[in-house]
């Protein structure tokens, strides 16, 4: 049925629920992520809600270059999220490891651990860029849902 499929696709794009984790970040990008929730940027008008619970979330917003301890944590959070899910790597450290890339304990970015869908560069990334990234990730959820059905 065309209408049901369209309605489901529209709802998926219009209601991306976010779980946010700081994987060994300096907290700069995390402050900008939380600033998106404030009245100045107001992400709730896009339907984005910061649920702290991976079981309820669609989009995983991660900041920080990863080390061995936070690697286990982001793997656990990612595994607990139900499909369809997307990962947004926010900040230079999350994309490539940033200025900490050469450190002995740093793995060098989220994509060394998880499949990242959207990279939001910046140090720290601006709230407008973060919102744009989450919006793009929400748009990808529909394609992921279609693939989810086909593999089953």
């Amino acid at each position, binding site marked *: 049925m065309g209408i049901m499929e369209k309605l489901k696709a529209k709802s998926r794009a219009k*209601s991306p629920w976010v779980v946010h984790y700081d994987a060994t970040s300096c907290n700069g990008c995390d402050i900008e992520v939380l600033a998106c929730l404030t009245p100045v940027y107001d992400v709730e008008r896009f339907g984005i809600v910061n649920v702290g619970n991976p079981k309820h979330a669609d989009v995983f917003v991660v900041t920080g270059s990863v080390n061995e301890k936070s690697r286990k944590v982001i793997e656990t959070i990612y595994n607990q999220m139900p499909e369809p899910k997307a990962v947004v790597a926010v900040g230079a450290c999350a994309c490539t490891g940033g200025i900490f890339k050469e450190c002995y304990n740093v793995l060098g970015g989220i994509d060394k651990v998880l499949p990242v869908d959207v990279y939001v560069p910046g140090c720290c990334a601006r709230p407008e860029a973060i919102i744009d990234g989450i919006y793009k990730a929400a748009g990808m959820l529909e394609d992921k849902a279609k693939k989810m059905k086909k593999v089953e």
Partner: protein
Amino acid sequence: MEMFLKIVLIVIFAPILGGFLDGIDRRISARMQNRLGPPLLQPFYDVIKLFGKESIAVNQTQIAYAFGHLVFAIAALVMLLLGQDLLMLIFILAFSGIFLIVGASSVNSPYSKIGAQREIMQMMAYEPIIVLMTVGVFLITKSFMVSSIFEFDKPLIYYMPLLFIAFLFVLTIKLRKSPFDFSTSHHGHQELIKGVTTEFSGTQLALIEMTHWYDLVLLLGMVSLFFAKPIWVGIIIALVAYFLEIVIDNISARVTWRWMLKLSWVFGLGAALTNIIWLYITLK
């Protein structure tokens, strides 16, 4: 046959009304916080999206508890709108709450279990007031049936104004609004991660959201019973009470269970008991 048609219409249209009221709630709350807020249809987008998620079941009985929670809430609403027994309706509503508590207790997460215990505290806080309201209705109309409230000549609020104020406590707790929203909180807020609903996801969470919509329509219906004689006045009073709840939600902080019990038992139950004793004496 006509009753069956009525039941089908209630089951289909009540959640649509409840979802719209929920959307209005989020929009007005956002405006009060100097933000724009989500579109009015946002709760529907949320629930449809949740139905499309993968099923993660922590144990085999969770979905049954989520369904039980929904079905008994629908039963209570149908009983109210068909003018049936008010006391029975309250027990069925309590049963719906118990399903959620047992469902949350059935998983091993500490957040879920503590959320379930807090939900029990909430039930302990509001159940006495709702039962006293039913006793008040019985003292005035000599019957427990909702239809007898419509047949009574005067609006009930003239006889039970203090019970109306006590019912506002019930409304705040049942609608999960601050200051009494600590077993699970509503969108965007977190309490014990998500308290009672932490381990529910996908379809189960969508069912719990829809139950919240049915509960919303049920509770606003009970508020409008206080002024049932032209029912449109009752509905306006219910909507004003809903707006008052949104205001209270935005201006207060969450309290602990001790404060909730103190406030609702001293002020809510105190007002209710005063009203019942006064009714008993004057209607003797």
